[in-house]
């Protein structure tokens, strides 16, 4: 059990975790100021015999300060976030050389269609595997998400990647895995009774392993 974010296993993870930490520090300061202030005022100005309140209706300078500081902070946070957002999810953010994998979600399984040795989807050497996502390490991968029935959501915590799969839409999401190993994917959008068990094993291979795996699969090898 960790008290922090999970393993960083994609290129997004470092940026997202960095932003998370920045927001945590900023909100942490606000949190401490307010909570400490509330406790301090509660003790210091509590009613005692002979105590009288200071009669005032406010202070314009104070109002301006505590409006301007949060305003500038949140707008700056918004601009910084948008910079990363455009890189991760923007319309034209998917790198052209991305390795394509078709992901078709249905109650309650994930079907992954791989492009086969030719590296292209929609050709005869494609093959489809249920509930197993295999990706090469250090390579841009684009998942092309569709759904058979209801909304599902493709979520790999160690990649910090999430994207809904929506019936009637084809949605592309990309990532670049950086640490070889075995992970898990879950469905993040309530999709019915079996929502809780709609999971997938995710394997990040070295390029050599991945090429070998593709070869076995293309020859109709066992999973």
């Amino acid at each position, binding site marked *: 059990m960790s008290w922090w974010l999970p393993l960083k296993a994609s290129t997004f993870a470092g940026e997202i975790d960095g932003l998370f930490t920045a927001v945590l520090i900023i909100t942490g300061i606000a949190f401490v100021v*307010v909570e400490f202030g509330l406790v301090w005022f509660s003790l210091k100005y509590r009613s005692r015999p002979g105590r009288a309140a200071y009669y005032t209706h406010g202070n314009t300078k104070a109002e301006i300060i505590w*409006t301007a500081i949060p305003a500038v902070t949140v707008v700056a946070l918004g601009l910084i976030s948008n910079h990363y957002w455009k890189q991760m999810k923007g319309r034209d953010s998917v790198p052209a050389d991305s390795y394509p994998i078709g992901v078709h979600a249905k*109650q309650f399984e994930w079907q992954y269609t791989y492009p086969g040795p030719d590296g292209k989807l929609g050709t005869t050497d494609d093959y489809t595997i249920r509930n197993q996502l295999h990706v090469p390490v250090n390579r841009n991968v684009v998942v092309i998400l569709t759904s058979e029935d209801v909304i599902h959501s493709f979520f790999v915590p160690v990649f910090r990647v999430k994207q809904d799969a929506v019936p009637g839409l084809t949605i592309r999401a990309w990532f670049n895995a950086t640490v070889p190993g075995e992970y898990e994917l879950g469905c993040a959008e309530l999709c019915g009774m079996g929502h809780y068990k709609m999971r997938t094993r995710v394997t990040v291979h070295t390029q050599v392993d991945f090429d070998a795996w593709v070869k076995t699969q293309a020859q109709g090898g066992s999973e």
Partner: protein
Amino acid sequence: MSSLAAAAPRAPTHHDDRTFVQKYIFSTDHKIIGIQFLFLSLLFLFLGGVLAMQIRWQLGFPGQPMPGGGILPETMAPGGVILPEYYIQLVTMHGTFMVFFAIMPLLVGVFANFLIPLKIGAHDMAFPRINMASFWTAFLAGAVMFASFFVPNGAARAGWTMYAPLSARPDLSGADYGQICWCISIVLLGLSSILGSLNYITTIINLRAPGMTWFRMPLSVWCLFVTAILGLLALPVLSGAAIMLLFDQTLGTHFFDPGAGGQVLLWQHLFWFFGHPEVYILILPGMGMVSDIIANGSRKPIFGYHSMVFAIVGIGFLGWIVWGHHMFMSGMNPTLGSTFMVTTMIIAVPSAIKVFNWMGTMWRGNLHFHVPMLNAVGFVAMFVIGGLSGVFMAATPIDMHIHDTYFIVAHLHYVLFGGSLFALFAGITYWFPKMFGKMMNEPIGKIHFWLTMLFFNLVFFPMHILGMAGHMRRIYDPTQYEWLKGYQPMNHFITLAAFALFATQFLFIWNFVWSLFKGRKAEQNPWRDNGLEWTLPNPAPHGNWEKVPTVYRGPYEYSLPGAPDDWYPQSSKLPNDREPAPAPAPAH
């Protein structure tokens, strides 16, 4: 006397010749209607809590028979073990009951009804019969929603947000009549809210007492006014969407079915176009009551009254243009995501202004920590956490990780429980004397506050950690996932804390019921408050005042230099107070 005033309900008569039914059941008295809403929605609050306990049992002790679960039928929990299909009903109905039948009617149904006429100096609501219809429509809506547990295949199973197409297709959700009940109930509830909102807006605009100018209104009334406008404009959208969903379920329309030309995301846009203003409907009235109570407890005028009003109005406007932040991961155009991120970030500003002004009010005050004040300060302390955690999910890249995880669950409970419910505990204990003529027990109230504060944080703070780990929402069994197995001790701990939190609420129930019958008789103005409602006897008679009072000042004149006491009622005349100009004759 102007014809507007003549159209208002009559002043109280000396003989109350109404029958029991007219007086307490089909009453047109705004105070009785408020109290009816209070009893009904406290019942639903309790029910929502019972559902939450079952959710927590399953998460803390997955697959183990629930104590007392044996009374549930085989279709829900055979041998007391919660089934996945029942778990989804629990999640769906907990959200539905808490949002639509507990928090919303407690804040709006109870306090808009009870407080508006009393605080602005009116004999009653502008439309007392519409007001009565509003309560009974809400009652019917609640009855239909409750009954949906007992129809074949049980209650709705698509989450309180009812995302289509899961909600539209019985073959995919497994619930049919339950889904239909949900839609019908929500349409009825929408009608109730629209009737109520119309009434609140009309009353505040037209029936203010002489001298009660806009900027002499208590912030509670300002908040309820903006809330009513949000309700009037947002609820029709929800009702429309629910009717479309109902047609998809029953008449074979395909609004949300992409296979037949429908649009899946249409539901989300409609739902959240309602849903985000709704979020502010669920917090603004609480902010208003807390403002009144903190000024009273601090014995000081509210700090920055005008900026508080502008912040309320600002939230009311901005609340309409942030709904897309619920849809960052939905496949909506990412450029729209950027837009909604910026508006969402900006809406943090008015909330920050309010928090700093509450602190400014307490600064150099003379703080009296009566039970309402404790809960009001508790509200500020907890609302801040909910507001700040919102910044994480507003930042779209971070949202990619924490969207639909327990981080969101933690955030929304900090706002709705830490915020709205603490405000409600404050409001109920504060106006209980005016409602029932009795005081609530002070020591029990204090114990209840501290235990609730403790257990609330023990339940919901760790959920941030679960969310960071990637613990998805609405999953029946987290131990299915390798990466969540290690977090089971935390889930276990949260469940135990949740049971303690629930048990603590029996202190409040006991205090409420006991005080109702045996409580100490309340003085007319136990909190030494300036509001007009405290010039009335306890409980206030039907029609409120013989002759409505004249207002000479704002509601927060505490510790006025030169005044004989540390409070000065809105209706007390000082020698150099000018009489307000007579109301202008209405245009013909």
